[in-house]
C-alpha cells in the first residue's frame, strides 16, 4: 500500500497549535488525490475511532428548475443502493459495526458524515467510496424517499419556528435557490425522477468538487494511502460547477401567518454578508454585543432579563459562500409580539447610533478568542470545523490568525459596521402567531416609523 502514496502530493502542512499544556493538537494536513479529491486530516489518537466528513458541491442551487428538492433526494438516496449492495445490506453493514453514516443537503453543498471504530475503517471507506461513485438510485427507493420527504415537508408545518424561517428566507431571497427550502415543495418533489437523479449524480458527485476530512486515530499518511486505494474508482468530473449566484434581496415587508399557538414566533432581518467579506469579523464582534452573545447580549438583557418577554432571543449574521443573512429570532406570548418587536428594533437603532462601550468590546473579544478552543473539543467538531475552513478557503492556519483579527477590531469598527450592515429600513418581519391575539398594527408601531 505504501507505493500508492506516490500518486499524491502533499499540498500543505500546518504547524502545531493550541495549548501546550494539553495533548490537544489539530495538526491539520491537506493533500489532493490524483482524482482531484481534497483531503484534510487531523490525527487524534486518544480514542480508537475515526470521524469522516465529506462536503461536496451538490447542493440545491445546482438542481434544475421545476425539480426543486432533487439535490436533497439525491443526497438521501446515497445510502439506498449501490452496484453491489441493497439499501438493507448497507444498513445491516453499518449497524453491525455500530457505525453512523448520515447524509444531508444544503443550498451550496451536500454532506456525508461517518463515525466508526478504527478497526472498521477499511470497511467504512469502501462503503463510502461506493455510495459516492456507484449509487444506483433504484426506482422503488426513489418513490419511498419522495414519500418520506413529502411527509417531512408536512411535519415541518407543525414547528412554528421553521414555518417562520422558511417564509423569512423566501422573502429575503425571492427567485433565488437560496430562497427556497432545500426539500422543495410536495409538487416539485413529485416531479423528481430517476433520469434526473442519475444525471445530477453523474455531473455533481465528483471528487474534484469535494472536500473529505478525516479526524481520529489514523495518521495523515495512512489516511491518504487507504483513501487512495478505496477512492480510486471515483472519477474526476468537469472543472466548473457553474457561475456564483447573485441573489437580490427582497423588499421590506411585514408577513403575518395565523396559527393556533400560544406564542408568536418572530423573525426580523435583512441581507447580510458572504463569508469572504472583509468586514465579516468586525460584524461578528458587533453582533455578539447586539444579540449573538447569549446571556451577555443587549437583546437578551432588554427583552428577556428586564422585561421577561422571551425565553430565547438572539441575532445572527449567517454567512454563506455567495450571500448572507442577518436575523433576529425570538418567541413571545401572542399578546406581547408588538412590544418585543419594538424593543428589538430599538436595540438595532441604538447600536447603530451609539456603537458599543469599551467594556462591551473587550468582553466580546475576550469571549470570541478565549472560547475558540471549545469549538474544537471533540473529533466531530474538529471534522466539521476543518471542512468549513477548507470550503471557505480560510487556510489551515485559521486558528492562528483568528485571534489576531478579532483583537484588532476597534470601537470605531463596531460603530461603522453597525451603521453599514444593520439596515432597519430594510427589515423583513415574519410573525407566526395567533394573529387575533397578537393584534399587530400595520405599519408596525416601532416608534421609528418602520
Amino acid at each position, binding site marked *: 500500500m505504501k507505493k500508492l502514496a506516490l500518486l499524491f502530493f502533499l499540498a500543505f502542512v500546518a504547524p502545531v497549535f493550541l*495549548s501546550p*499544556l*494539553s*495533548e*490537544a493538537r489539530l495538526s491539520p494536513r491537506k493533500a489532493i488525490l490524483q482524482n482531484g479529491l481534497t483531503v484534510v486530516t487531523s490525527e487524534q489518537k*486518544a*480514542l480508537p*475511532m475515526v*470521524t469522516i466528513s465529506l462536503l461536496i458541491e451538490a447542493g440545491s442551487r445546482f438542481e434544475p428548475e421545476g425539480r426543486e428538492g432533487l439535490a436533497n433526494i439525491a443526497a438521501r438516496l446515497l445510502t439506498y443502493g449501490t452496484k453491489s449492495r441493497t*439499501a*438493507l445490506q448497507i*444498513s*445491516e453493514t*453499518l*449497524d*453491525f*459495526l*455500530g457505525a453512523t453514516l448520515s447524509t444531508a443537503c444544503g443550498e451550496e453543498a451536500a454532506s456525508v458524515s461517518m463515525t*466508526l*471504530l478504527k478497526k472498521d475503517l477499511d470497511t467504512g471507506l469502501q462503503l463510502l467510496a461506493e455510495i459516492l461513485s456507484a449509487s444506483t438510485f433504484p426506482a422503488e427507493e426513489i418513490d419511498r424517499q419522495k414519500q*418520506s420527504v413529502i*411527509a*417531512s415537508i*408536512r*411535519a415541518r*408545518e*407543525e*414547528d412554528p419556528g421553521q414555518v417562520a424561517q422558511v417564509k423569512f428566507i423566501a422573502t429575503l431571497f425571492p427567485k433565488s435557490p437560496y430562497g427556497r427550502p432545500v426539500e422543495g415543495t410536495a409538487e416539485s418533489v413529485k416531479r423528481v425522477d430517476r433520469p434526473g437523479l442519475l444525471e445530477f449524480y453523474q455531473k455533481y458527485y465528483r471528487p474534484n468538487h469535494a472536500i473529505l476530512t478525516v479526524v481520529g486515530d489514523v495518521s495523515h499518511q495512512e489516511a491518504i494511502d487507504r483513501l487512495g486505494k478505496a477512492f480510486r474508482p471515483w472519477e474526476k468530473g468537469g472543472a466548473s460547477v457553474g457561475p456564483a449566484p447573485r441573489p437580490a434581496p427582497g423588499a421590506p415587508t411585514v408577513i403575518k401567518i395565523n*396559527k*393556533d*399557538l*400560544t*406564542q408568536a414566533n418572530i423573525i426580523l432581518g435583512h441581507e447580510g454578508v458572504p463569508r469572504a467579506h472583509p468586514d465579516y469579523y468586525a460584524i461578528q464582534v458587533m453582533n455578539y454585543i447586539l444579540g449573538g*452573545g*447569549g*446571556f*451577555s447580549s443587549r437583546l437578551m438583557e432588554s427583552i*428577556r*432579563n428586564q422585561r*421577561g418577554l*422571551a*425565553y430565547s432571543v438572539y441575532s445572527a449574521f449567517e454567512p454563506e459562500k455567495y450571500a448572507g443573512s442577518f436575523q433576529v429570532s425570538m*418567541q*413571545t*406570548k401572542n399578546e406581547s409580539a408588538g412590544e418585543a418587536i419594538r424593543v428589538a428594533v430599538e436595540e438595532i437603532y441604538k447600536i447603530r447610533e451609539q456603537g458599543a462601550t469599551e467594556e462591551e468590546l*473587550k*468582553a466580546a473579544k*475576550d*469571549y470570541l*478568542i*478565549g*472560547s*475558540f*478552543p*471549545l469549538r*474544537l*473539543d*471533540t*473529533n466531530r467538531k474538529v471534522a466539521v470545523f476543518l471542512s468549513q475552513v477548507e470550503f471557505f478557503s480560510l487556510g489551515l492556519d485559521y486558528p492562528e490568525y483568528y485571534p489576531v483579527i478579532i483583537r484588532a477590531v476597534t470601537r470605531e469598527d463596531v460603530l461603522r459596521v453597525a451603521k453599514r450592515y444593520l439596515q432597519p429600513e430594510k427589515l423583513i418581519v415574519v410573525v407566526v402567531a*395567533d394573529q387575533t391575539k397578537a393584534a399587530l398594527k400595520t405599519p408596525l408601531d416601532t416608534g421609528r416609523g418602520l
Partner: protein
Amino acid sequence: MRIFFLSLILLSWVASAHAQNFQIREAVLDNGLKVLLLEDHKSAAVTFQVWYRVGSRNEIDGKSGLAHFLEHMLFKGTPKIAPEQYSRIIAENGGNSNAFTTPDHTVYFATMSREKIGVEIELEADRMTNALLNGTYFAPEKMVVMEERRLRTEDNPAAALGEVMAAVAYAVYPYRRPVIGWMSDILNLSRDDLHRFYQTYYAPNNAFIVVVGDFDSENISAKIKQEFGKIQRGAEPPKVTLEEPPQRGERRTALKKEAELPLVASYYHVPNLQSADGFALDLLSVILAAGRSSRLYQDLVYRKQIATGVEADYDGLSIGPSIFSVSAQVMPDKGPAEVERAIDELIAKVRAEPVGERELQKAKNQVEAAFVFGQDSIFGQAMRIGQFESVAKWQLINSYLPGIRAVTAADVLRVAKKYLDPDRRTVGTLIPTKGQAQ
C-alpha cells in the same frame, strides 16, 4: 438556563466507555460534598459540573416547576455577584456555561480552559449558599419561565403529548408532573417557596461535583477544597417516599392539538438500571429501533411506509421507576390505529420468540461503539458520570459494558415478556387539529 431536558433525552448517553474502565478519582470533603475527577487531556478544555440531588421529583402538588424556577433564579446574583453577571464573567473568561433541571437533579456547569476554570469554581461555591433570589428580577424571570413553557410544551405537539402521557402513566410517583411545571403552578410560585426549597436542598451534602478534561487532579482538588470546604453541611433533606403501585390494565389517552401528523406512543413501566434486567432492556430498545436495520424501522418506515420515524427508548438512568417508550410519527394519509397495530405485532413477536444471535451481537456492537463515541466529548463524559452517580454510584459505569456483553437471547425474551405487557402500559395518541385560530 436555564434549559431543562426531559429525562428521555439524557438517555442517549446511557449507551456510551472506551472498553477500559474510567479512571475516576473520588474524594469526599468533610461537609459531605463528593468530588469526582476524570482527567482527559485530549482537548484543551475542562468541564466543571455541580449536581444537586434535587429535581422535580422533590416537589409537591401545587408547587410544580419549583426546582426549575430556582435554577433560573440562581443566575440572579449573590451579595458578591450582581444579577446576570455570572454568565458574563464566564464568557469573558472564554467559557460556555449553563444549567438544566431534570426530574432527578439540577445541574450547573461551565466549560473553559484549565487556566480559567478556577473562576467557575469560585462562582459555583458562592451560589451554593449565597443566592439572593429576591431581587427585582423575580417577576420578569417568572414570565421568562412561562415563555419557556409555551415554547417547549404548549406549542410543541410531541412534548405536549409526552406531558399528558406521564401524567397518566404515573398515578403516584412525582414523575407525573412536568419538570417545567404546570402553568398555574408557575404563576403561583412565591419568593418564599424559592427560599425554602433552596434552604432545604442546596447544601454540600446534597450535591456532588464532576470535573472532566484537561486539568491536574492535585491542583483542582485543592481549589475545590478551598472554595467549597468552607461551606457548612446542611440538614439532611427529606427523602421521596412515594412508590408507584403496580399498573393492572392498559391506560389510554389522547391529545387534540394543532399539528400536522399524528403520533402514537406507548409507555411501559420498567425498573431503572440498578436492576439486573436493565442491560437486557437497553439492548431490547436497540433491537427494536436503533438504526435503519432495526425491527420497527424496517417494518413501519421501510416496508409498510406507515410511519415517518420510530423510536424505542429505555430510560434506565432515573432514580425512580423508569419508562420504556415506543413511539412513531404517522405518515400522511395513514392512521394511528394502523401504526399501533403494526407496533403491537412486532412487540408480540419479540415477546414470543428469542432474537437471533447475529441480531443480538449487532445490538451489542451498536452499544459498545456508541460507548466509545460518547467519550469524544468531555461534557458527554461528565454527564454520564453524573447520571450514574445520581441513580446508583458512578462505579456502575464500569460494570455497564460487561453487563451488556453478558446478556443472552433468553434474557431479552424474558424481559420483553415481563415488561412489554399491554396491561402495564399507557398508550397515547396525538390527534392533529388545524386552523382553529380565527
